[in-house]
C-alpha cells in the first residue's frame, strides 16, 4: 500500500517507491520538491519565510521554516544517502499573494509580497547548487494543496476554486 506522508507547515519529509508526499494550504508558503529520477526518492519542504539570517531568528532550530536552511538541509540528506546534487530535479509550488491590499503587496512598486520573496529565495539557493527547476506553479492569489509522487516525480496541485493541474 502506498503511504501518504503529510508535510506540515515548516517541516520536510522524504518518500520513496510508491509513497506520496502531501501538503495542504500553501498560501504565501512555498512547497519545494526535490526528486532523484534514478532511486525514485523524493523530498518535500513546506517553507514559510525567505531568510533565516535575520537577528531574531538566531535561536530558531527549525531548518524547514526558511528557504535557505530548508534547501541546505534537504541537500545534505540526499548527499548522505549517496545521491549527487547533479541528479536532482526541483519543483516549486505556492508563493501566492492571497490578501491583496490596495496599494500594498500588489507588486506594483517596491513592495514585493512575502510569497514572491519566498519563491525567489528558494530559486536563488537552488541556483547556488546548480539544481534545475523542472516545474513551477507559483504566484497568483490562490492557495494550493500538493500531492508529490515519489515513483514518478509528478506533482498534482489543487486549488479551492479552479480545480486540479499536474506538474
Amino acid at each position, binding site marked *: 500500500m502506498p503511504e501518504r506522508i503529510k508535510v506540515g507547515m515548516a517541516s520536510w519529509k522524504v518518500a520513496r517507491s510508491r509513497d506520496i508526499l502531501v501538503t495542504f*494550504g500553501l498560501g504565501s508558503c512555498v512547497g519545494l520538491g526535490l526528486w532523484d529520477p534514478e532511486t525514485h526518492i523524493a523530498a518535500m519542504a513546506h517553507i514559510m519565510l525567505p531568510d533565516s539570517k535575520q537577528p531574531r531568528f538566531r535561536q530558531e532550530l527549525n531548518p524547514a521554516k526558511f528557504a535557505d536552511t530548508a534547501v541546505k538541509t534537504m541537500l545534505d540528506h540526499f548527499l548522505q544517502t549517496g545521491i549527487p546534487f547533479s541528479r536532482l530535479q526541483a519543483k516549486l509550488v505556492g508563493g501566492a499573494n492571497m490578501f491583496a491590499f490596495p496599494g500594498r503587496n500588489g507588486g506594483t512598486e517596491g513592495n514585493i509580497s512575502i510569497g514572491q520573496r519566498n519563491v525567489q529565495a528558494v530559486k536563488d539557493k537552488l541556483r547556488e547548487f546548480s539544481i534545475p527547476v523542472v516545474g513551477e506553479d507559483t504566484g497568483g492569489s490562490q492557495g494550493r494543496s500538493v500531492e508529490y509522487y515519489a515513483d514518478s516525480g509528478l506533482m498534482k496541485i489543487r486549488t479551492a476554486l479552479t480545480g486540479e493541474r499536474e506538474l
Partner: protein
Amino acid sequence: MTDPTQINAFYRDALRELGNIGAGNAATALSQLVGRTISMSVPEVMVIPIEKVPEVVGGSEDVAAGIYLEVFGDLPSKILVTFPHRNLVQLTDMLLGHTLGSTAMLSEMKMSALKELGTILSGAYLNALAKFLDKRMIPSVPALAIDTMTAILQTILVEISTDTQFALMLRTEIIETETKISGTFFLIPETSALDLMVEAIQKAAGVVDA
C-alpha cells in the same frame, strides 16, 4: 518583551475579558445592522507554536471567506474574520437586505458586502477595546480571500512569524441564532502590542506592579 508562553492565568482571564468586550460590541453592531439576534461564544485565549496553529485551530480543506485587516496605532495587531463558504450566499443576502435564499451567486456586490462586514465587526471590536484600554487602534482597509481554511490561516501566520515563534490568538464565535450562520473572529496581537496590552490591563484593573 512579554513572551506569549509566559502569560499567566491572570492575564489569560484579562485577555479573555478583552475578547468579551470587543466581540460583545461587534455582535451588537451586527445585530443592529441586520436586525437579527446575534449571540457569541466565550472567547478563547490560545497560545500556540505557529507551526501547530492549523491543526489546533481547525485548518481544513473546507473553503471559507477570510477577511483580513491590520491594526495600527498603539497596539499593532492582525484581525481575521472567517465564514464557511456554504453560508456566504445567505449571509450576504442578510447583509444586503435580500430575502434569504433569493440569490444564488456571490456577485461582486456581495464580495464588497463581505469586506464591509469585516470592517464593521473590526471597527466595533476595536472601538470597545481602545476605549477600555485607553489606547488608539486603527484598522486598515479589509482584504478578502476565498480559499481553504488552511491556506487562509497559514498566510496570516506567515505575516506574524517574522516577529514571533508563538501565536497568541483571541478567538470568538459570532452566531446568528435563527439560521445558525456563524463566523469566527480572531484578534492576533503582535508581540510588541502584547506588552502594552498587559500594561493597560494592569492599569485598567488597578493592579500595581510590586
